[in-house]
């Protein structure tokens, strides 16, 4: 708890002293108008304005100047008696300095706020002109008003008349007694760039350690130094069987075979462990295990709801990630290709599946009969999702927080958000062929032709009596087109093309519905005031996040800007991107990240427990050409990783949560490894790699869980109850829950019942009539160790307890218990 408290107060402090300059900008009069609170979401404009204030701006702004008569004592009395009470009654709970939350940025309790600041939509009252005053339109619930106020329901006609009359009279209002200096928030970007996760990464000097023989890898020096500082000492190295079991699950998601364990235990060569590491790193199962880590971040799904368009074959993306992990594609290139392989001259159409990262994004239902105002909100939500997944996955930043207002904690503005949203507003999700355009062109034509014929066919089938001859003719024609077109069945990847989406009214009125219009090319978005696409602010050019850019950074020019975005992530933001990824890998091995908020490296995220270690690893990650396998190798070869998870004595009291890694954390297998291991030990595992997904409900499906169908709308209950993340959103880290429903699944679910039976049969075949040997073998298969004499005794007692003799039934009951046991699920 102390740690948590410290962390909390630490970041509170930083918030308080944050990047938001606290120097209030005095409410200064420039050409007769005020710059005040209304500018707080638009400091870029403020900056621009101070530059160009003597030129163009002056014209546009002068119109907003408000002439109000000096309020006489009589008119103030009128206001206080007749008007103020109405404002108090209907408005002040949301629109005053006393309001718990000021809504719409609008306060109505001082003259300054009322007339000079206004709300997000600007001034709400034009003195003398009720017809032009937003306030009056809102309380009248006018059709064309942006908003209806108060939201609870329309106020009475008399009250509306009273407020209208007041505006007509020139809206007399008492002068403010203490015109206060307005506080404005402006980001000091120079200061913001100094935040720990944004600064350049540096290789660190090896820290001095007392126990100098312990380190095996460079990273161990840092871990040991922290231990020694905390008066802890490392746990001894785990025994070989435990170590290999841990290593095999970590690198491949599968258990080692008894033979592999035995060979390793008996291998006296000095590089015995290193050989195991290299062999497992080179195995194809490595990619299957580590692809899944990435797919959680990428919210991978095989299927979406039937009413949403399918853009291509999802599994091509999954298989692409597996291959990329196996090939050790440099992480920077891995990012570039997922965001923009179509814009990279060095990659061809066969790499299109990489685009699935965005191509498989969730889409939301858009009924085009509805007014465009509604559809715009849905599309804006989709763009937000893209910004969210890209910024959290690659940068550990929650940029989507800045859709409606500047980020509350981080130096990310609304402009930053819309600069990125524009990239996705200029990229259309679509199927892409894996072959060259020249080769694909005839296929495209043939498919269009078939589509046309199929539509005709559907119409014919509605006719009565059924025109059988015509139908047969059409069927033949369809077959001919398909067969005469080479590569007709060529697969399509869920990808992207460079088209910008515009949401337009179908007719003149909102009621006539909406058109989604895609146009070749790209677009910059207008800022959406409060995140509402029906209230537009200024245009924001597409560009990278300002705080991560340097002086020479430019707006994106190459089409949608996806490639420039990807390059900015790995160039301008390389330190952050590297820190984030190194931390994700670390988290997967140790169950806890060096930073405990893996997708939030911003101010409200946690600080690293071992800052120098993270910096050193990240710096060398980049130096090693962003090689993930090099990083994996260093981690698993380290003395830190090789420690035993068993420890007692004072260290346990001193660091119960093992923040300082003076032992290995005991971990629980994820649902994939748990199921895969059952299939492996029962001898049923089908280790085919890649291809379309298969339902997990099908008991004949013996492939790895990675290939089980993930369906956003209809998730496998088996996966859901075992903490598999919701595939609709980026998932930073799996949580582990323990529930009785999981228990029911273990006791009664078909998976364990059937694997138990298969395992019992396997053992019976290998060791007929030898209960004790079967128990020995079961322990070696499941737990990578022989049983103790006591465990053999317990096992035999169970097997023969009912009828003095074991039977296929008691064996299946016994193996069922072993599969359901904690030892099978937990890794020491």
């Amino acid at each position, binding site marked *: 708890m102390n740690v948590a408290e410290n962390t909390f107060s630490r970041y509170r402090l930083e918030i308080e002293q944050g990047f938001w300059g606290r120097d209030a900008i005095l409410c200064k009069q420039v050409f007769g108008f005020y710059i005040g609170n209304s500018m707080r979401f638009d400091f870029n404009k403020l900056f621009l304005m101070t530059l160009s204030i003597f030129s163009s701006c002056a014209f546009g702004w002068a119109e907003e100047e408000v002439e109000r008569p000096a309020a006489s004592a009589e008119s103030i009395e009128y206001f206080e008696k007749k008007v103020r009470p109405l404002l108090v009654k209907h408005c002040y709970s949301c629109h005053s300095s006393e309001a718990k939350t000021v809504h719409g940025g609008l306060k109505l309790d001082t003259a300054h706020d009322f007339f000079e600041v206004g709300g997000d939509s600007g001034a709400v009252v034009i003195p003398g002109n009720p017809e032009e005053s937003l306030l009056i339109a809102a309380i009248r619930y006018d*059709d064309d008003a942006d908003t209806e106020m108060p939201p*609870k*329901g329309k106020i009475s006609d008399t009250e509306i008349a009273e407020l209208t009359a007041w505006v007509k009279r020139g809206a007399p209002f008492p002068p403010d007694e203490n015109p206060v200096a307005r506080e404005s928030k402006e980001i000091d970007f120079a200061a913001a760039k100094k935040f720990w996760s944004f600064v350049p990464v540096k290789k660190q000097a090896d820290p001095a350690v007392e126990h100098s023989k312990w380190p095996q890898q460079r990273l161990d020096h840092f871990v040991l130094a922290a231990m020694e500082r905390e008066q802890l000492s490392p746990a001894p190295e785990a025994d070989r069987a435990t170590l290999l079991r841990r290593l095999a699950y970590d690198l491949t998601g599968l258990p080692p075979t008894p033979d592999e364990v035995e060979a390793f235990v008996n291998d006296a060569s000095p590089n015995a462990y290193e050989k195991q590491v290299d062999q497992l790193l080179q195995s194809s199962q490595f990619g299957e*295990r580590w692809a899944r*880590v990435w797919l959680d971040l990428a919210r991978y799904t095989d299927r979406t709801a039937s009413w949403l368009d399918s853009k291509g074959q999802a599994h091509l993306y999954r298989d692409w990630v597996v291959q990329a992990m196996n090939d050790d594609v440099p992480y920077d290139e891995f990012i570039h290709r997922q965001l923009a392989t179509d814009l990279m001259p060095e990659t061809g159409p066969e790499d299109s599946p990489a685009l699935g990262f965005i191509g498989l994004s*969730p889409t939301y*239902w858009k009924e085009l009969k509805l*007014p465009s105002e*509604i559809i715009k909100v849905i599309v804006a*939500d989709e763009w937000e999702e893209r910004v*969210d997944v890209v910024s959290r996955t690659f940068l550990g930043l*929650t940029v*989507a*927080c800045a859709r409606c207002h500047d980020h509350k904690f981080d130096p990310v503005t609304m402009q930053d958000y819309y600069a990125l949203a524009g990239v996705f507003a200029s990229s259309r999700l679509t199927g892409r062929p894996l072959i060259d355009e020249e080769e694909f062109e005839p296929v495209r034509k043939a498919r269009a032709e078939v589509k046309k014929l199929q539509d005709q066919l559907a119409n014919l089938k509605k006719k009565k009596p059924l025109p059988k001859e015509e139908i047969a003719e059409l069927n033949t024609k369809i077959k001919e087109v398909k067969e005469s077109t080479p590569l007709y069945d060529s697969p399509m990847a869920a990808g992207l093309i460079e088209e910008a989406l515009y949401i337009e009214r179908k007719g003149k009125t909102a009621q006539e519905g909406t058109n989604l219009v895609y146009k070749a090319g790209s677009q910059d978005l207008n800022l959406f005031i409060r995140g509402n696409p029906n209230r537009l602010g200024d245009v924001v050019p597409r560009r990278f996040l300002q705080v991560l850019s340097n002086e020479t950074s430019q707006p994106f020019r190459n089409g949608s800007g996806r490639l420039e975005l990807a390059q900015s992530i790995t160039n301008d933001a390389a330190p952050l991107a590297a820190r984030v990824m190194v931390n994700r890998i670390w988290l997967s*091995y140790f*169950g806890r990240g060096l930073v405990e*908020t893996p*997708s*939030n490296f911003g101010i409200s*995220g946690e600080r690293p427990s071992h800052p120098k270690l993270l910096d050193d690893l990240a710096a060398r990650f980049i130096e090693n050409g962003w090689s993930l396998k090099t990083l994996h190798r260093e981690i698993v070869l380290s003395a830190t990783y090789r420690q035993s*998870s*068993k420890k007692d004595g004072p260290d*346990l009291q001193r660091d119960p949560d093992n923040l300082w890694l003076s032992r290995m954390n*005991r971990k*629980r297998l994820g649902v994939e*490894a748990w199921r895969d291991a059952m299939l492996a030990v029962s001898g049923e595992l089908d280790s085919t790699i890649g291809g379309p997904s298969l339902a997990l409900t099908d008991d004949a499906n013996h492939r790895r869980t990675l290939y089980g169908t993930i369906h956003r*709308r209809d998730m496998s209950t088996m996966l859901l109850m075992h*903490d*598999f993340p*919701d595939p609709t959103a*980026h998932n*930073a*880290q*799996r*949580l*582990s*829950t*323990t*529930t*009785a*429903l*999981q228990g*029911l*699944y273990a*006791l*009664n*679910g078909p998976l364990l*019942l059937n694997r138990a039976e298969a395992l019992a049969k396997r053992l019976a075949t290998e060791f007929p009539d030898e209960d004790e040997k079967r128990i020995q073998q079961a322990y070696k298969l499941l737990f990578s160790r022989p049983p103790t004499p006591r*465990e053999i005794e*317990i096992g035999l007692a*169970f097997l023969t*307890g009912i009828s003095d003799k074991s039977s296929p039934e008691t064996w*299946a*009951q016994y193996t*069922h*218990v072993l599969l359901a*046991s*904690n*030892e099978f*699920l937990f890794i020491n």
Partner: protein
Amino acid sequence: MLHQLGTVPGMIGAASLLSQQSLSEAATSSANLGCHFPAKAKRVIHLFMNGGPFQGDLFDPKPALLKYAGQRPDGADLVTERPTGGLLPSPFKFSPCGESGVPVSELLPQLSQHIDDICVLRSMHADNPNHGPALLQMNNGTILPTRPSMGAWFLYGLGTENKNLPGYVVLCPGRPVRFSILWNSSFLPSAHQGTYINHSSIEPSKMIPHLRNTKWDKETQRRQLDLLQQLDSQVQQGNARDSAFDARIQSMETAFRMQFQASDAFDLNRESKQTRTDYGEGHFSNGCLLARRLVERGVRFVQVYYGNGQPWDTHSGHDEKVPKLCKDIDQPIAALLADLKQRGLLEDTLIVWGGEFGRTPTSENGNGRDHNHHGFTMWMAGGGVKGGMTYGETDDFGFKAVHNKMHVHDLHATMLHLMGLDHERLTFKHAGRDYRLTDVHGRVVKEVIA
């Protein structure tokens, strides 16, 4: 995939904070640990009329519809998202009911006898006129599929009272539109997700996944459990205490007991003949009775969807379909209210009734009604709600909420309030900010609280 238990970033929910337990324990922690203030309701039954009933048939009489039948009177605001025709009067009669005299339709003769326990919310409104987004909003406050459902929020905030049963149960004889995303836990721990039960068969072992073992009998299972405990404790010897390890041992025992407890909870045959008769026959009757059996055993939140798909979605033949739909719900809801009252459970069980939106007072193709999210009726009963009253008003035709408007956010804020939770303080830190069921909205409608 390997990961460690116990450390959960962002857990700042009330139940978890106050108890300082591991997540697995927090998920099943006892009631009211997390209340921000004394709760009036301890559990909720949400009767979900999926598809969207028309308010003007049932609880919100609009005589003006008859006066202007077939017309679209000048000046009337009747602009629907999709084109609709003239005003379509409801053929069903209303009369004042109970001591309160709140008008209820002749279609609900039995339910109307309980009107003095019911608070009719006539001014509900939502953001989107499509089923999917509206279903999501009613369940999670937004039109997005990426937010936790309210049931998950209740469990997160309050835990459950019976750890041998799931704390959040969704009953539907079939599958409602959008299915499991309506009760997901999204970024909240998965232990808080709803457990979907298809009760089109009322055989308990068919309703609950993996409730029965198809191979071994109870005695064999007991032997297996004993063996499991023995083996697990062998392994644990010499290791430091590990709450995740221990929690799993415990959960297997719980699961073993659940087989029998849940069989009991879900077994309608244990009800008297009289009770079965009182609730009537049919899926919805069974759903209501199951709901009572579950809340009685401490299940925190039960949703009963009326039926498969979206049965209340009457785009055509509206006037023929509605009497049948009402007949299905009238008796069981009346029986549920009477039953809960008689058992002393109504006072702290909140009943919420309604669809994802209402329907238009104007006609769709002459005999149907289209979706209407601008104004619709829901009602609440029990659980600290004032009975025998109406709250809010729609316009003369029952199209838009105009007075004391109550948004879905306000409904959620009020429900949480009744459960002892402050909707602005029940937060979960995720993706860089604190999330709430009510996002940045929501008003507790104190006027309906007793």
